[in-house]
């Protein structure tokens, strides 16, 4: 059985199926949060279980918050209201920070995140919060489609006035003919498997990257062979870096 993987959007409205999927995706974390909260309320958990309950509630709430942010950003994108607040950003530090923040979500599936950098200065004028969102969405996508107990490799390198951040997973992969569609709004990768999720994260990531004058692309050797998502952003020139920094 295979569900339609492209959620139909007509005009400004979500289709019934899209709304049902949105409801489903919002409900799933509620189930987890409610379950652990009820256990805490009963007062029967030991110290280790209580810590697990709190950690799960915090982590799941963060995931749901990301989901709601994505939904709001979808509206901003459609209205052309997604704006950037530019500041100096060290891309390598930003990526390391996001990877650290995503560790609890990855470890819930026994997934390790390896972060590497070529050590070059990777300063650019960009919206730090939005660029964090890009990396978070790329990592969340990798975690979602990776098998348990696997590894995600994240690498930041400088090349010809640009910085490239790649997120490589060993997950379900993407069929070659579907690679161009991966970043479309409400498009979930059709790898021949039924998919869950809204398919918003990568579309939002692409828009944010484009607003920074960069580009984003996906590569995969095919189904079951993992995928690599890359972001390339223009670095600021020496002159720009010498100029007064935005307040």
């Amino acid at each position, binding site marked *: 059985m295979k569900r339609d993987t492209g959620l139909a959007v007509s005009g400004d409205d979500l289709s019934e199926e899209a709304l049902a999927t949105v409801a489903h995706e919002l409900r799933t974390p*509620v*189930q*987890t949060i409610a*379950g652990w909260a*009820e256990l805490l309320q009963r007062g029967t958990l030991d110290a280790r*279980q209580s810590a697990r*309950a709190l950690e799960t509630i915090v982590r799941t709430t963060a995931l749901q918050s990301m989901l709601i942010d994505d939904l709001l950003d979808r509206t901003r994108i459609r209205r052309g209201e997604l704006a950037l607040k530019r500041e100096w950003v060290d891309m390598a530090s930003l990526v390391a920070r996001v990877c650290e923040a995503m560790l609890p979500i990855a470890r819930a599936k026994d997934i390790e995140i390896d972060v590497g950098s070529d050590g070059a200065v990777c300063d650019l004028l960009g919206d730090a919060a939005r660029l964090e969102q890009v990396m978070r969405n790329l990592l969340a996508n990798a975690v979602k489609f990776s098998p348990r107990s696997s590894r995600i490799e994240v690498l930041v390198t400088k090349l010809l006035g640009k910085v490239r951040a790649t997120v490589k997973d060993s997950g379900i992969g993407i069929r070659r003919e579907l690679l161009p569609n991966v970043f479309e709004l409400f498009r979930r990768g059709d790898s021949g498997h*039924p998919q*869950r999720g809204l398919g918003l994260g990568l579309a939002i990531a692409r828009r944010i990257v484009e607003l920074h004058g960069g580009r984003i692309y996906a590569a995969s050797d095919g189904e079951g062979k993992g995928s690599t998502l890359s972001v390339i952003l223009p670095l600021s020139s020496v002159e720009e870096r010498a100029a007064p920094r935005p307040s």
Partner: protein
Amino acid sequence: MEGGGHARGNASGTTALSLREPIMCDGRTDLLLLDDDRDLTDAAALLLESTCSVRVANDVSEARRELQRRRPECLLCDYWLGQVTSIAFLRFVGMYSPCTRRVLMSGCPFDEIRSLLDERLVHSFLAKPLDYETTLRCIQCQCQHINDVEVGR
């Protein structure tokens, strides 16, 4: 999350099964819970353990191993298991352990789920988010059905 009790069925056999094949009887319902979300299964297992002896599986392979170790009275199974549905596994359970009551849970009552009820691939459906009182009642109701069949009511 292992419960007490004992299995009376021959877990490795696949032939000559009948509705009367014994499963287990330790006072609590032997429940196999299958969902790919470990956070959810761990919480659900704790919430249900006062009434059920809960075994947890987070993928189909684990569930098959548990099923072969001991056939549960009741299977509580999510519709979506990662990137696949549980339909194939439900068919397997229907063949391998026909006396196991199969309860499906999902966040969305899609048409295909209703058709699973129609073709008796599942005995009952629970909408997520689960209310655990309702879930327990549903499990007990399903297992009462087994008891009724066993005593010939």
